[in-house]
C-alpha cells in the first residue's frame, strides 16, 4: 500500500533522554519568563528588541524548515516524481520547524495572551509585513498538518478519510508552495522598515524579499540533504546519495542566481568599498559569501555530487550560509545606534536549545512510530 514504514525501534534511548534534559532546563527558564517577565531571562534591551528567540526560532528556524517547501516545488511543480520518497521526512521536519517557530513567537510575544488580535480583522494593519508573516506562518502550519495528515491516517488505518483528503490534497500542496514563498520573502521584507539599523551590506530594500526567498530555498534543499544523510547514518538506512546528487544541480543554479543578485546589488549601489572595510560587517559578508560559494563550486562537478561526504559538507555549508545571512542582517551587524549591545544570555540560549531538543525528540518519535521514512532501497 505505502512504501513508507515506521522504524519501530525503541524511542527512549540515551540521546533521547539527554535531549529531554535540555528540554527540561528550557522549561524551567520558560517558567521564569512567564512568571517574572522576559527581562529576567533574556538580554533584550531598548535597541535590540529582537534577540535569539526571534532570530533563531522564527527567522532562521522556519528557513531551516523549508525542506518541505523546496521539495514540494521540485516534486509537484517541477514534476520530478523521483524525489517523492524524500517528501515525508522533509514535511515532518518542516512541520516541526514551523511548530517551533510558532512556539518561539508565542514565547517571545510580550503580550501573548492577546495573540489572537492578529486574527481579528478590525485589528489588522495591512501595511505591516509582520501581519503577513504572522498570518501566513499560522496558515502554513495548518497546511503542513493537513499535508502530513495522511501519515497519521495511514498509521491509524482511516482509509476513508484518507481518500477524501487525497482528492483535495493538491490544493493544499499548492498552498504549501505559495505560503512559504509569501512569508519567507516577507521575513526579508521585515528588514526594509528597520532602515539604517540594518548594515548597508544587508539592507537591500527592494531586493529583500527576493534574497530571502532564494536563501530559504537553498536552506530547504540543504536541509533535505542533511536530514537524509543523517537518517541514513543514524538509523543505518540505505544511502540516498543518488537521489540527493540530483538536487545538487538545482542547488548550484539557485546559489548562482542568488549570488548574482547579492553581488549585483552591492556593485550597483556602490557598496563595494564596504566589503573591504575590515570591520565586522565586511568580515561577515565575506564569510557568508564563502559559505555560499563553497557548495556551489563543489557541486558543480558531477563527481562531487555523487560523493555523499562532499554532498553533506556542501549542505552544512549552505545551512550555515543561509543562517548566517539571517543572523547577520537581524542581529550580528544590526546596529540600532551607539551604545546598544546584545548577546544572548545563558537562559535565552538554553531555551532555544531546549526547543530544538524538543523538535528533534518529536522527530525521532514520529519516524519510529509513524510511516515517514520510505522503505525500499532506491534503484
Amino acid at each position, binding site marked *: *500500500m505505502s512504501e513508507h514504514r515506521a522504524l519501530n525501534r525503541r524511542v527512549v534511548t540515551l540521546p533521547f533522554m539527554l535531549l529531554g534534559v535540555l528540554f527540561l532546563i528550557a522549561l524551567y527558564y520558560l517558567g521564569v519568563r*512567564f512568571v*517574572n*517577565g*522576559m*527581562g*529576567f531571562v*533574556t538580554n*533584550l*534591551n*531598548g535597541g535590540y*528588541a*529582537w534577540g535569539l528567540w526571534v532570530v533563531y526560532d522564527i527567522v532562521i528556524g522556519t528557513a531551516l524548515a523549508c525542506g518541505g517547501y523546496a521539495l514540494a516545488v521540485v516534486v*509537484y*511543480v517541477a*514534476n520530478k*516524481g523521483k524525489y*517523492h520518497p524524500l517528501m515525508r521526512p522533509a514535511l515532518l521536519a518542516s512541520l516541526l520547524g514551523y511548530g517551533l517557530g510558532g512556539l518561539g513567537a508565542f514565547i*517571545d*510575544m*510580550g*503580550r*501573548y495572551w*492577546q*495573540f489572537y*488580535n*492578529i486574527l481579528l480583522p478590525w*485589528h*489588522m*494593519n*495591512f*501595511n*505591516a*509585513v*509582520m501581519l*503577513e508573516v*504572522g498570518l501566513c506562518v499560522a496558515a502554513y502550519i495548518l497546511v503542513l498538518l493537513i499535508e502530513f495528515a495522511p501519515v497519521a491516517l495511514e498509521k491509524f488505518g482511516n482509509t476513508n478519510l484518507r481518500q477524501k483528503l487525497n482528492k483535495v490534497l*493538491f*490544493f493544499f*500542496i*499548492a498552498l504549501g*508552495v*505559495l505560503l512559504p514563498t*509569501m512569508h519567507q*520573502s516577507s521575513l526579508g*521584507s*521585515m528588514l*526594509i*522598515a*528597520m*532602515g*539604517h*539599523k540594518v548594515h548597508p551590506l544587508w539592507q537591500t*530594500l*527592494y*531586493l*529583500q*524579499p*527576493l534574497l530571502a526567498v532564494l536563501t530559504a530555498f537553498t536552506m530547504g534543499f540543504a536541509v533535505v540533504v542533511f536530514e537524509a544523510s543523517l537518517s541514513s547514518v543514524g538509523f543505518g538506512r540505505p544511502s540516498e546519495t543518488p537521489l540527493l546528487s540530483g538536487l545538487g544541480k538545482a542547488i548550484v543554479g539557485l546559489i548562482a542566481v542568488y549570488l548574482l543578485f547579492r553581488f549585483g546589488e552591492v556593485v550597483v549601489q556602490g557598496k563595494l568599498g564596504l566589503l573591504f572595510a575590515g570591520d565586522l560587517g565586511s568580515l561577515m559578508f565575506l564569510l557568508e559569501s564563502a559559505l555560499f560559494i563553497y557548495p556551489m563550486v563543489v557541486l558543480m562537478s558531477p563527481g562531487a555530487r555523487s560523493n555523499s561526504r562532499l554532498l553533506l559538507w556542501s549542505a552544512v555549508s549552505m545551512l550555515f550560509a543561509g543562517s548566517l545571512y539571517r543572523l547577520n542582517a537581524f542581529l550580528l551587524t544590526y546596529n540600532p545606534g551607539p551604545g*546598544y549591545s546584545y548577546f544572548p544570555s545563558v537562559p535565552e540560549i538554553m531555551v532555544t536549545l531546549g526547543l530544538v531538543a524538543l523538535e528533534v525528540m518529536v522527530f525521532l518519535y514520529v519516524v519510529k512510530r509513524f510511516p515517514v521514512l520510505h522503505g525500499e532501497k532506491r534503484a
Partner: protein
Amino acid sequence: MKRRDFLKASISGAATLCSGGALARPNLEPAPNAVGMLYDSTLCVGCKACVSKCKEVNGMPAVIEGDWYSWDSARDLSSDTLNVIKVYREGEAEVKDRVENGFAFEKRSCMHCVDPGCISVCPVTALRKDAINGIVTYHADACIGCRTCMTGCPYNVPQFDYDNPFGEIHKCQMCNQAGVERINKGQITGCAEACPTGATLFGTREALLQEARRRMSLKPGEIYSYPRGDVSKPHSLYEKPAPEYQQHIWGEKEAGGTNVLHISAIPFDKLGMPPLRERSYASISETVQHTIYNYMALPAVVLGGLTYVVRRNINDDEGDKS
C-alpha cells in the same frame, strides 16, 4: 509547458516588484493640525525639569541606579522614562555648544514622525496616528507585544517593559493619552510647560517650523527674543544673544519629517541622531508589500497556477503511485 508559464508569471511578478511601479507609496504628509515640539539644544541648560515633569504626568517612578538616591538617574529611554536629557561631551567639555572640548544637551523622546515606522510595522494597529493632530499613540488593548515597533523606529523610542510579565510598550504620547489628554484640554505638553528656558517649545508643527527657520536666519551674537512654553504665546518673550546654529532643522525632512523638531549648534550625528534619508523606510516597506499583495491579486494568480500544475502532476503520478 506549464512550468514555463509559472516561471514567466514569477518573473513578471518579480519585475513589478523591483520597479516599484504605480503602487509606490510616497511619504505621508503632516496631519492638518499637527502639533509638536521644538527642542533647541542651545537653550537647554540640562536642568531635567522636563524629565521630572514627564514622570509626574505619566506617573512613572524615578530610575534609581547605584547610590544616587537623591535624583532620577535614568540613562536612556525605558519603560519608566519617556523623556530624557542626554549629554554630548568631548575632551575637556569646557564650552557649551562646541564640538571640540565642548558639550551639548540633547532631548530624547518620541519624535512623533509624520510617517511613523512604528505604525507602519505594527501588525495589530496598536500604534495609531491621530488624523488631526498627528500624535502617535499606543493602545495596549490591541498590542501583542511582538516589539516590531521597536525595530521599525529609527530613533529606538518605543520601549517594552521586559521586567514585567504583563509588560507593555511605553512611549511619549505627547501628554494626550487617555486619562491625561492635556492637548485635547487645550494645555501644552508637560515637558514644554516645565522647561524653564524655552528649550522645549510646544506648538503646531507649522508655527514651530517657522520659529526654527527664524532662528536659523539669526546672526550669531545678535540679541533675539524667544518664547517659553507655548510658541503661540508672544507674551512669554525672553532675550539672548543668538548662538551659531547648524543650518539644519532636524525633523523638517528626515524620513518624511517629524512633528518634534530639533535644532542645535553642533551636528546632529554627534547628538546621536540616526543617518536618515528623506524617504521614509516605512513608505519603501509598504510600497514593496502593496506591490506584492495588492488586493491579493498576485498571490491569487500564483495560487491558481500552482493548483493547476500540482493537480496535473499528481494525476501524472497516479499511474505509478499508490
